[in-house]
């Protein structure tokens, strides 16, 4: 196998590539390197059935020449291949068109020190242990109720090293781990099949509870049985962090990027300092969030990550920036250029949220539900990716979802559609829970909103 790579050896390879680029006549150069592996044990149809091992490493080289950018990558770490990669990036830059607004690569700054991003127990975790953890999850799911069927699930351990070197003296590397599991279930009774339900757990440290995940996934599936239709009308609605993430990712999280704002693709343009959400909402992006899935010392351009307040008590305060968009607005990058995980070297940086945090409130999940007379609890959304990111309009199916009557979950709902605009929904938020969970980029408690239009069949 490729000999073990570490932070120092990646930086060394990166420095050589950058030096070579300058020697060949590049104005500026940057090398982004990654190395890592991932072990996964997968469950399919009630049994553990496969084990996967992936190892990946490579270098991506960005070169600026006469204000035009070229990029090339390779996953072959020998001198010849790296030389060719540098040459290709330079050739591409020369063939491309100059961009007068190109601000240059960033210069070195002080980096923060995020906590809880690496745990050697995850690196050393044996496949047998991974498999037995998956088994605990599966047994917990199947043991709960015999109407439950585990469609799929997995237990996954990931180890990554990233490093970046550029010709403006940036030279930084970092390592991280993550362990995650999920169980997807459905329940069957007579001729009824529930939609897929799932629960998950994820952590940068070896601290997850697969048994709880299996149990919760099964409980959810059973509670989705005996679904009924719902009357069309306006309801109070509680979003879990999963359904909220799906809704926000394709609307607010797209519109709050400076790129979308500058290019007239965002309803948030010109709204800094204005009210765009209910005063109970404070939202920030935090690349240093303790134990966050997207927590890292530096972003995909080598800029230190930071905490950026985006919405404060309902008022819009800031957008998300990378170096290019920041230079256009004459501000500093917020450290939101992202590169990906195992295959980070394959792509150029992309403006994206890190850990998008909805600040927690004071209510428990039970309290959020108890205060509702007539409402819905939304577990998952289908079709969120078909939302209009520019206007924030969405029209999606809520499944699974539950009817709430007099503060209690009354029954599960079949085929209800939610339609509206994300900004109306955010203005109507009435309460925020107090229990954080991370779903991909979103760190959020459950959130309750009022007066949401639900279309029944």
């Amino acid at each position, binding site marked *: 196998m490729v000999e073990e790579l570490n932070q120092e050896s990646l930086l060394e390879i990166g420095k050589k590539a950058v030096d070579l680029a300058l020697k060949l006549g590049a104005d500026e150069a940057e090398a982004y390197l990654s190395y890592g592996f991932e072990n996964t*044990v997968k469950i399919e149809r009630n049994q553990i059935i496969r084990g996967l091992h992936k190892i990946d490493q*490579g270098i991506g080289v960005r070169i600026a020449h006469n204000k035009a950018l*070229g990029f*090339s990558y390779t996953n072959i770490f020998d001198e010849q291949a790296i030389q060719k990669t540098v040459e290709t990036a330079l050739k591409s830059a020369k063939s491309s*068109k100059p961009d007068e*607004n190109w601000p240059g690569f960033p210069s070195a700054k002080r980096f923060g020190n995020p906590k809880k991003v690496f745990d050697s127990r995850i690196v050393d975790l044996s496949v047998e242990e991974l498999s037995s953890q998956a088994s605990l999850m599966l047994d917990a799911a199947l043991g709960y109720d015999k109407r439950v069927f585990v469609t799929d699930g997995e237990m996954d351990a990931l180890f990554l090293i990233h490093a970046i070197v550029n010709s403006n003296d940036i030279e930084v590397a970092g390592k991280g781990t993550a362990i995650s599991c999920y169980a997807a279930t459905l329940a069957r009774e007579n001729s009824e099949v529930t*939609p897929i339900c799932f629960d998950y757990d994820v952590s940068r440290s070896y601290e997850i509870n697969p048994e709880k995940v299996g149990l919760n996934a099964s409980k959810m599936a059973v509670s989705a049985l005996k679904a009924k239709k719902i009357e069309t009308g306006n309801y109070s609605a509680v979003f879990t962090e999963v359904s909220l993430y799906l809704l926000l990712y394709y609307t607010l999280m797209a519109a709050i990027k400076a790129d979308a704002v500058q290019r007239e693709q965002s309803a948030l343009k010109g709204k800094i300092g204005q009210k765009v959400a209910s005063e109970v909402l404070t939202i920030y992006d935090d690349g240093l969030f303790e134990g966050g899935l997207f927590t890292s010392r530096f972003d995909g351009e080598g800029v230190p990550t930071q905490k950026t307040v985006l919405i404060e008590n309902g008022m819009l305060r800031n957008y998300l920036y990378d170096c290019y968009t920041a230079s256009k607005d004459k501000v500093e990058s917020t450290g939101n250029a992202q590169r990906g995980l195992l295959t980070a070297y394959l792509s150029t940086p992309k403006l994206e949220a890190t850990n998008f945090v909805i600040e927690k409130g004071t209510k428990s999940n039970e309290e959020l539900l108890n205060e509702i007379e007539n409402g819905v609890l939304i577990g998952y959304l289908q079709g969120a990716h078909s939302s209009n990111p520019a*206007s924030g309009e969405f029209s999606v199916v809520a499944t699974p979802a539950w009817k709430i009557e007099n503060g209690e979950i009354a029954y599960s709902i079949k085929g209800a559609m939610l339609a509206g605009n994300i900004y109306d929904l955010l203005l109507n938020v009435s309460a925020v829970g107090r229990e954080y969970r991370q779903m991909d980029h979103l760190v959020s408690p459950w959130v309750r909103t009022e007066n949401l*239009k639900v279309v029944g069949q």
Partner: protein
Amino acid sequence: MKDELLKVINSGRSFGADYIDIRGERLSEASFTLKDGRVEAAKEGLQEGASVRVLVNGAWGFASVGSLETKVLIDATRKACSMAKAASLKIKEPVKLYETKSVEDRIEKRPLKNPSEISIEEKLNLLFNFNKVIFDYDARVKSCTIDYLDLSGKSYFMNSDGTYIEQDKLYVWSRILATAKEGNILTYGREEIGSTAGFEVFDEQTPEKIGTLIAKRIINQLKAKTPKGGTFPAVIGPNVVGVFVHEAFGHLAEADLTLSGSVLIDKLGKKIASDQVNIFDDGTIPGAFGSFKYDDEGVPTKKTMLIKQGVVVGLMHNRETAAKFNMEPTGNARAQNFRYEPIIRMRNTYMAPGDHTFEELLEGIKFGYYLKSFRGGQANLDGTFQVGIQEAYEIIDGELGASVRNASISGNTLEALFKVDAVGKDFELWPGRCGKGGQTAFICDGGPHVRVKEVLIGGGA
């Protein structure tokens, strides 16, 4: 390559594998993003790697590495076997593979215009032309993002059943996205172009044709109203029929998902659609974005009939599900690249045309919707589907009326397919990309215009 791979296959046997396959790839890629006429970066890259897949004690093991060296592949094989052993500890139903005929073949691509021989300048010029057509259409066009990708290379497949296949890979793809704004109204539209034939696809899907289509759509949408929520009759365009067939039916007919509890599990041989409905998944259409000769298990691709006159007659299989159902494998096992395992994916999926004209489909609808172009879609195993619509119109007394924006349709597949009461005689196939299990596959979907008696429309706010 063949001799080297054979050494790896033999090593797998010595590590205890009952079955082993190797998929090696050398891939080169060029890609660009143009944002409002600005090139983000001109990107070109090379990569090589392989994955080894084994069966040990009835469980799968898989390992992928960024190398084609024999010694590295033998190490990966050892790793794959230990992964399989760890996964097999509590196996209840061991995996079996459908026996297939071994094949030795070499497939070469001969594009009219090979993207790897076209200069960066020429590719960028094409994108600038798209950009110009769209911005020149109307001053209310505010942004335009164009992505371009071409991918070419070679794959080498060998398994322990004696199959060896070398296959050229070639994909050309572009996505054009634009927005318009007037007052507080923001509209958004997109199209994709994709081909496995070559760069010549842009001679047909020209900047003038596709650029104008999108620009016109987003400008018309500025005056559009949001739909009423509720159940209405509808005429559905080929583009939306395609995504409906793909999402609402196709995924349920992927045999792995059928086994995982999709509502089709007990529907083989049963009627789930009206008589007019015939559905195929076809990997043999020349140049189409979802076409190829052999799948990533070395099984030849086919034209697979899924629904015949409303009755489910087939599913899409890999060798594992084919053995479970005791049906022929259909050649649907596909992997995004050497980093991934092959899983059951669609190819070009469509509803076959019938005999009505578009006007006949509109006839007799007092009030309903014409759903012309989709924005996205998704389905659940229980048959609940959602398709978001980027271009729609009202139908009033059999005639097309005002533009409608932010519509989407939903329902349950098993009910919706029965509501198809007339099928048009036209036919279009649209390229797209489909995500499943963290992998992206290039596909097409399509069909004719179709009328449904009623469908649930999710209204605007």
